[in-house]
């Protein structure tokens, strides 16, 4: 009996922690990610948001171009995508086998996507001048 009480207490505590984590996750886990899984998930979300913004700016720029320029922009974007993937694969490689690997990969994608968006915004500005 003496052994059962602490075990019971421990399972209660575990259950409580799990329940509160679930509640937090249901709210918005990315406001304050705590576990590696949450961190990975949130990094991926941030990348997807950055990617959507890049697509928006890309389309704005493409809309201002004639067919020839659009083809060149498309070629540049395709080569950028390959560069992004290869560069982030390199950064990920450094953490091979670690639980942080997905986080590193998504953070790299997000960072590169944001700087590409800045670049395209600059080109858009040049066109508007």
């Amino acid at each position, binding site marked *: 009996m003496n052994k059962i009480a602490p075990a019971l207490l421990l399972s209660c505590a575990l259950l409580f922690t799990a329940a509160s984590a679930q509640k937090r996750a249901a709210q918005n886990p990315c406001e304050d990610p705590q576990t590696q899984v949450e961190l990975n998930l949130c990094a991926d979300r941030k990348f997807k948001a950055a990617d959507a913004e890049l697509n928006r700016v890309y389309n704005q720029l493409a809309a201002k171009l004639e067919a020839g320029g659009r083809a060149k922009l498309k070629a540049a974007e395709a080569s950028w995508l390959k560069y992004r993937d*290869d560069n982030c694969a390199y950064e990920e490689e450094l953490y091979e086998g670690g639980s942080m690997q997905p986080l590193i990969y998504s953070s790299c994608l997000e960072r590169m996507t944001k700087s590409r968006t800045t670049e395209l915004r600059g080109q858009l500005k040049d066109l508007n001048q």
Partner: protein
Amino acid sequence: MKRIALAILFVVCLISFAFAKAQRQRQTQPCENAPSQYEADECAHKEYVAADAELNKVYNQLAAKLEDQEQRAQLKAAELAWIKYRDADCEFASSFYKGGTMRPMIESFCKTDVTNARMKELREQIKTLEQ
């Protein structure tokens, strides 16, 4: 005596201010003030060649820090992809000036900018490895 000291101080400030301004201009658009377009092209090209040489140095520093064969192969793949991106992006950026005399200069400016950005990235990657 006090007046002379003040005057000297004023002149020194003025000179250093002008110097700083000139340097800043050099850093932003050093070649645009060349007397002819040909010289501006040459100047911009030289600047790009210098940036490229510096990038190679940084790349080799990073590669030397990698012990894993696979990591080195992946870095090389990234660099080859980056070269293609640099060329395609600057081909696009300079296409607005197609047929114009400024085009080679614009292309060199673009390549220098893209090269400097890549250099910054590789330097960050070196820092990560050193942590």
